[in-house]
């Protein structure tokens, strides 16, 4: 396959975990993988991205492309597609990159496939597999010939290379001119909640989730402790976010986020179909619930019928004891 361009997110030059997974997906398909990164510090990612297989890193480090400013990002992404000559763009499937990719696709006449969990090359091009309808079905999709293909890669579907020993990527800075049109959205403030060192829910390998069974907002402290013991993120059911026990961006399910971590542990969550639609494709599912008939047990790999207020603290102790 010809050159693939991988869209990378980074924190001050340190690539996000999902970005390295995207590089691994690209490397499996093409010998020549280029990366593109935006915002201040982008060039500092060259060593890590090269180690993970990128030959060239295209950068646009203007401060205008921070904080998910869609307009400037879309212009810079189009420039990177031109500079790399890539026919395929792989990007981490997250909401903000989706906005940028959506705009760029319209400009470029590209086709977009979201949330791919596997990629193969058939004689007529790239075929992406996605889990649809809450994971009840798998579909194989492709972008028709003659159009660039933009494919969103679901977090944790690919493993980042563990033999990351490539040479640093050659840095090439993009020539981008932004117009007033591109800067129509003003970012007035960025407010982040205190979440310790917890990973973001949509890219975490482990998610500890809590529901109405927690009883109150304080109950989430228990879920946060469990998440921290496992190095995971915190998720919530709609009953919990609706009650104001935990912020909405942590809601998993039909009207919230779709997650597919390596491990999902749900406590005090019944497993309603609308919740399952957001977590059913997790690789491993564990559940703690007092009700042996709770629907969550029908999809759990491991279930504990018991009181979460007893089981979760004891579990935290067990994990700490075994990790010593």
């Amino acid at each position: 396959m010809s050159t693939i361009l991988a869209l990378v997110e980074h924190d001050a030059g340190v690539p996000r975990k999902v970005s390295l997974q995207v590089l691994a997906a690209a490397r499996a398909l093409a010998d020549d993988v280029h990366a593109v990164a935006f915002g201040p510090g982008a060039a500092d990612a060259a060593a890590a991205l090269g180690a993970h297989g990128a030959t060239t890193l295209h950068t646009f480090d203007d401060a205008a492309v921070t904080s998910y400013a869609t307009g400037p990002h879309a212009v810079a992404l189009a420039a990177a597609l031109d500079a790399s000559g890539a026919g395929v763009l792989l990007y981490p499937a997250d909401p903000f990159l989706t906005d940028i990719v959506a705009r760029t696709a319209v400009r470029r006449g590209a086709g977009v496939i979201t949330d791919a969990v596997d990629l193969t090359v058939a004689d007529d091009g790239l075929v992406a597999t996605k889990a649809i309808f809450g994971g009840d079905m798998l579909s194989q999709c492709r972008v028709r010939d003659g159009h660039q293909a933009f494919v969103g890669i679901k977090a944790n579907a690919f493993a980042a290379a563990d033999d990351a020993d490539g040479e640093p990527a050659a840095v090439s800075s993009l020539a981008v001119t932004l117009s007033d049109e591109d800067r129509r959205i003003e970012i007035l403030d960025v407010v982040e909640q205190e979440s310790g060192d917890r990973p973001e829910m949509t890219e975490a390998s482990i998610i500890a989730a809590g529901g109405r069974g927690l009883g109150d907002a304080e109950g989430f402290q228990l879920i946060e402790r469990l998440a921290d013991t496992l190095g995971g993120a915190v998720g919530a059911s709609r009953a919990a976010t609706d009650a104001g026990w935990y912020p909405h961006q942590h809601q998993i399910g039909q009207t919230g986020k779709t997650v597919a971590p390596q491990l999902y542990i749900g406590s005090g969550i019944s497993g309603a179909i609308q919740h399952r639609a957001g977590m059913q494709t997790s690789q491993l599912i564990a559940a703690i619930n007092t009700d042996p008939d709770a629907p969550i047990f029908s999809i759990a790999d491991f279930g504990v019928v018991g009181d979460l207020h007893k089981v979760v603290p004891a579990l935290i102790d067990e994990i700490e004891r075994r990790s010593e």
Partner: protein
Amino acid sequence: MRIICPVKRVPDTAADKHVDPQDHTVDRDRSDPVLNANDEWAIEEALQIAERTEGAEIIALCMGPDQAGTTVRKALSYGLDGAIQITDDAVAGSDAVATARVLAAALADEPFDLIIMGNQSSDARTMLVPAMLAEHLGVPALTYVKDLEIDGDVFTAKRETPAGHQVVRATGPLVVSVVEAINEPRYPTFKGIMAAKKKTVDVRDLVALGVDAAEVGLDGSRTAIVDIAPRPPKEAGRVVTDDGSGAVGAEALADWLVEQKIL
């Protein structure tokens, strides 16, 4: 203020999904079709804006088959003023790019100050349409909005991020996509349901929109579904009953985590 609410007809999440084995499209009529839940928050926000803005008008916009008429009536029953329905055999099976293209064409001659819509549909969930629609129309999009303030034609929004929110501002006309946290949708009233039956729905086809049928639908879309199949069933899991102290359940679960190489 003229507000457009794009609304989608989707299979109920709880219903069995039926996919046509020939063309791989969802058979929405056999899957208990409903109004996409996220669009209800958009409708609610539009209603609240209209309640505090004199002379405001809200128009639903739906691309779908004949039967999408029920979805449009449902949207109207909340108290919207009118609706545009795009129905044409040639749009069936449109991907996100083609859908946005058709919705944009329907708005080409429609004045609007605000297009407000759900951030995602519950069936396809691509989250692509709001930004694509905005791009086609050449307007800004404020997406994943959980709080919206309007002052004249200046829109200030809290936009949900993974870690919190951003405060963003843009001048209309524009597209806003909303998340569930924005409001608490009302239920349609009996009066609203009765009134909806009498409202006119402006049904248009591709010719009326001036869109070439070859650019949209199953054949004109840039993406194609090659195959679709049920996911292989999962093996039944293990269940352990705790003794009431938490110890038995915790130990068994920790053992399993070790077995699965999580610990």
